[in-house]
């Protein structure tokens, strides 16, 4: 291969292309997790997309290069047409992952979903401790989760366990590893809370101390080494304790595409919150997904590097972290184009340092504000 061909190929590989569609089928959910990534103001959302709309979205996504779809929410099991949606995703040859709380446990329905073509299931576990689960999610459903996990494995489906880590459960990483092993999970995701949306509203109560994060990381690394080849163990650090921003969504409008329950296409779950882009989003009811991905004003707003302020624009890390998280810059500073305060080089890194200092002082008095659906009925 000539150097020119190699360059052309490298450029093509780097070009914006969505590999994963995150299909938020509904905001309805039996849980009330205090770190939910759904918008704080759910009431302004219109009716959910119909089965046929989603089928078209899946076809358009596949044509755009998407290879995987995450059927998520809210709780996707509340959609009565989930079997039809799985079948539609598979008809578009997408690798189809169901992201669920496992509530209600229904082995027969799970069998129907597998028959429709479901490829994998990711089960959220809020806590191994019943009181901890009730504290963070408003209820404890471990029995339903265990039943869902068992049914998933009985059907031969690969199981991922996902635990969002925060001050209330981060000391129990070893319990989560043991649970994942017991349930025969192929993957365990230990993802620290991202402090946006509901989680930002509850940051005082949720952000763990650095020592707790480091201990959890050590436990996860030990499990990863021990279970290599048997179970994949992922640990996502909180960017508040990392000094460098996370490569949010692998770059704005670069690899991921989110469609909300009412059909708004976004580059990430939180992007709809950015005030300056409020009129920049398109609905899949009005415009094709391909058009939106390529031409949509919101998608173009922070794609590539042209938007970057100093110090990002000349930073060696900009091709690794893509300038961090735009939604975090907006949430903390009101300016989505600012440098992500999680970065130690950011002019307003002091905001993150101050939050971190408060997290060292235990225990916080801050009460939790649980996610509630408002005006959705």
């Amino acid at each position, binding site marked *: 291969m000539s150097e020119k061909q190699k360059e052309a190929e490298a450029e*093509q590989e780097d070009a914006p*292309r969505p590999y994963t569609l995150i299909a938020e089928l509904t905001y309805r959910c039996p849980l009330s997790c205090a770190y939910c990534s759904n918008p704080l103001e759910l009431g302004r959302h219109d009716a959910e997309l119909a089965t046929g709309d989603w089928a078209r979205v899946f076809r358009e996504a596949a044509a755009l*290069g998407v290879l995987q779809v995450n059927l998520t929410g809210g709780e996707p099991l509340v959609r009565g047409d989930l079997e039809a949606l799985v079948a539609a995703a598979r008809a578009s040859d997408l*690798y189809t992952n169901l992201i669920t709380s496992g509530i209600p446990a229904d082995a027969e329905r799970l069998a129907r979903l597998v028959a429709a073509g479901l490829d994998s299931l*990711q089960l959220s576990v809020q806590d191994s401790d019943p009181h901890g689960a009730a504290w963070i999610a408003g209820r404890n459903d471990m029995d339903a989760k265990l039943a869902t996990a068992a049914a998933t494995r009985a059907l031969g*489906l690969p199981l*991922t366990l996902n635990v969002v880590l925060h001050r209330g459960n981060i000391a129990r990483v070893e319990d989560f590893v043991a649970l994942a092993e017991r349930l025969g999970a192929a993957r365990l995701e230990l993802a620290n809370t991202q402090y946006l949306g509901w989680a930002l509203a509850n940051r005082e109560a949720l952000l763990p101390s650095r020592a707790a994060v480091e201990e959890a990381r050590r436990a996860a690394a030990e499990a990863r080494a021990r279970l290599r080849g048997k179970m*994949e163990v992922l640990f996502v650090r909180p960017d508040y304790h990392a000094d460098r921003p996370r490569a949010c969504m692998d770059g704005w409008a670069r690899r991921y595409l989110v469609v909300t329950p009412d059909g708004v296409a976004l580059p990430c779950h939180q992007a709809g919150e950015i005030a300056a882009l409020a009129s920049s989003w398109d609905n899949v009811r009005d415009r094709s997904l391909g058009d939106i991905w390529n031409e949509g004003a919101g998608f173009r707003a922070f794609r590539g590097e042209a938007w970057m302020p100093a110090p990002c624009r000349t930073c060696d890390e900009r091709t690794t972290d893509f300038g961090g998280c735009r939604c975090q810059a907006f949430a903390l500073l009101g300016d989505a184009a600012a440098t992500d305060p999680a970065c130690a080089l950011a002019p307003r890194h002091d905001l993150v340092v101050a939050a971190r200092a408060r997290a060292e002082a235990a225990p916080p008095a801050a009460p939790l504000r649980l996610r509630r659906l408002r005006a959705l009925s």
Partner: protein
Amino acid sequence: MIDRTTRLSLARQVRLKLDPRSGKQVLLYPEKGLALNDTAARVAALCGEPRTVGEIVARLVAAADGAVPAARIEQEVLAFLRALEDRGLLVVHAP
């Protein structure tokens, strides 16, 4: 550790698919994907049913028809299969 005598196939969660955009074969598994080079794509296709590593290597050596040294092919096949094993994407069968 996988060696020439190991009999294996792709795990059930793995799907091999032609990526229409790049023209390359990709391996899809829960929430992830691997783009495959030509050798890897051929190995993955052969892993659709249980085979020994030796058998896979022999097939690739025959197909290469002397253009690539057999030792290098074996090295590449083993490296790829061990990478899949690390990710839990293979099933090892009784010999």
